[in-house]
């Protein structure tokens, strides 16, 4: 085997994980951010702080606690087992849960800021043009929060790609199943296979640069046309 021969399975897995997680992050994060931006409930402050909390735990430690929660005897794992019959730890679904939890603040906070910056005005204008709440959310709030959305996607995606502490912990580093690129690079470094690590890192950087570049470019295009 060539010393630099590279297995591409982790690349696809990473891409799949990052895309799935980003999608789920948006689906969960957007309503949370919207609620946080508009509520004046006394729950707002605690919820805001709780969303940011996963950040302060070292990923491996967060992973450790997740591992306990996801275990067949743990709270989440039991529910999941009852529903799907499978186990969460060491599965792709588990990875997604971990990534989502860990990257949530990066998605919620920029979105919340963007929603707050919109203010009441455009929503009132839209209401007067006949748009109901859901309609307003999709046709006014989201487009006006576009910059925040881009940041949320950027941070969420990049962070999921780079994340490895949580993923390593709850994924079990199973090649082809839970061994994502970040772990694979990490393994090369640990195993002193610096050459392969360099190649993979460079590839990851180039690829991510490309993705981020495209996201920012799209954003610019939209900006030029719209806001």
């Amino acid at each position, binding site marked *: 085997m060539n010393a630099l021969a590279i297995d591409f399975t982790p690349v696809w897995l990473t891409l799949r994980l990052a895309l799935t997680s980003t999608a789920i992050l948006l689906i969960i994060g957007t309503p949370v951010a919207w609620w946080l931006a508009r509520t004046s409930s006394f729950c707002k402050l605690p919820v805001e702080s709780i969303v940011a909390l996963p950040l302060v735990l070292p990923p*491996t430690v967060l992973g*450790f606690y997740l*591992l*306990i929660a*996801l*275990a*067949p*005897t*743990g709270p989440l*794992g039991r529910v999941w087992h009852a529903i799907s019959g499978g*186990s969460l*730890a*060491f599965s792709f679904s588990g990875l997604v849960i971990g990534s989502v939890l860990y990257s949530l603040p990066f998605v919620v906070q920029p979105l919340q800021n963007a929603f707050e910056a919109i203010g009441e005005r455009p929503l009132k204008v839209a209401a007067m043009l006949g748009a109901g709440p859901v309609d307003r959310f999709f046709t006014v709030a989201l487009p006006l929060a576009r910059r925040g959305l881009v940041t949320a996607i950027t941070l969420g995606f990049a962070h999921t790609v780079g994340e490895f502490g949580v993923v*390593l*912990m709850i994924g*079990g*580093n*199973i090649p082809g199943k839970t061994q994502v690129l970040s772990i694979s690079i990490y*393994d090369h*470094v*640990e*195993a*002193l296979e610096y050459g392969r690590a360099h190649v993979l890192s460079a590839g990851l950087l180039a690829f991510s640069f490309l993705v981020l570049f495209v996201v920012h470019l799209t954003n610019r295009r939209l900006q030029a046309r719209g806001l």
Partner: protein
Amino acid sequence: PIGRHSTNSGSVVDVAVAADFIHTLQDLGTAFASAGGGHIVISAGSTGKLYAQIHAGAPYDVLLAADVSTPRLLVKQGLGVAASRFTYARGRIALWSRSPRRVDNKGLVLRNGKFRHLAIANPKTAPYGAAAREVLQHLGLWQTLRTRIVRGDDIGQTFQFAASGNAGLAFVALAQLKDPAFPASGSYWIVPQKLYAPIDQQAVLLERARNNAAAIAFVKFLHSHRARTIIRRYGYNVD
């Protein structure tokens, strides 16, 4: 390399240690100090990480690696003192489950037991993982169990996989089970030495401490009977 930290603090020894040996080292440190040796400061990490750090000039005086090849490499690269390199412990692995009576004393559970996941340390980066793979290959189970094997980053994580109940079985270091401070419950099978190549863990005095009396004294201490007793107590074999 200049370490601001320990150049002239003669009685302090910075020891970099592979994670599995940390508790043993703590005990050794106490013993060393009480023997009038000096104070040791422990930095733990995986052997691979420690190598990269030493390469980048980390202010460590002694490395207690989890393998043989890293100290050998350091010596070859002129970062370790050749004469000081020696095997301070020989690790042993055990198959462990947190449920009592799950693991029999022949390891038959691997062949016919019902378990979803078997945790081993990453064979690529952790010597204990390599040993576990060897055992499985020896038993002819490596291929059959392939899909059920989950790999921890190191034996610490491997232990957590099993301890949290996510993996039914795990190949862990015997030292982890024997740890007097945290005696493990459950059942285990100490894998016979003939099933895997010895996990020799070597120590080496690092070049920057070539003339550090306290460090030299500590390496010497590791050879002592007192030290060996302590090491043995944690389930390691010592020559």
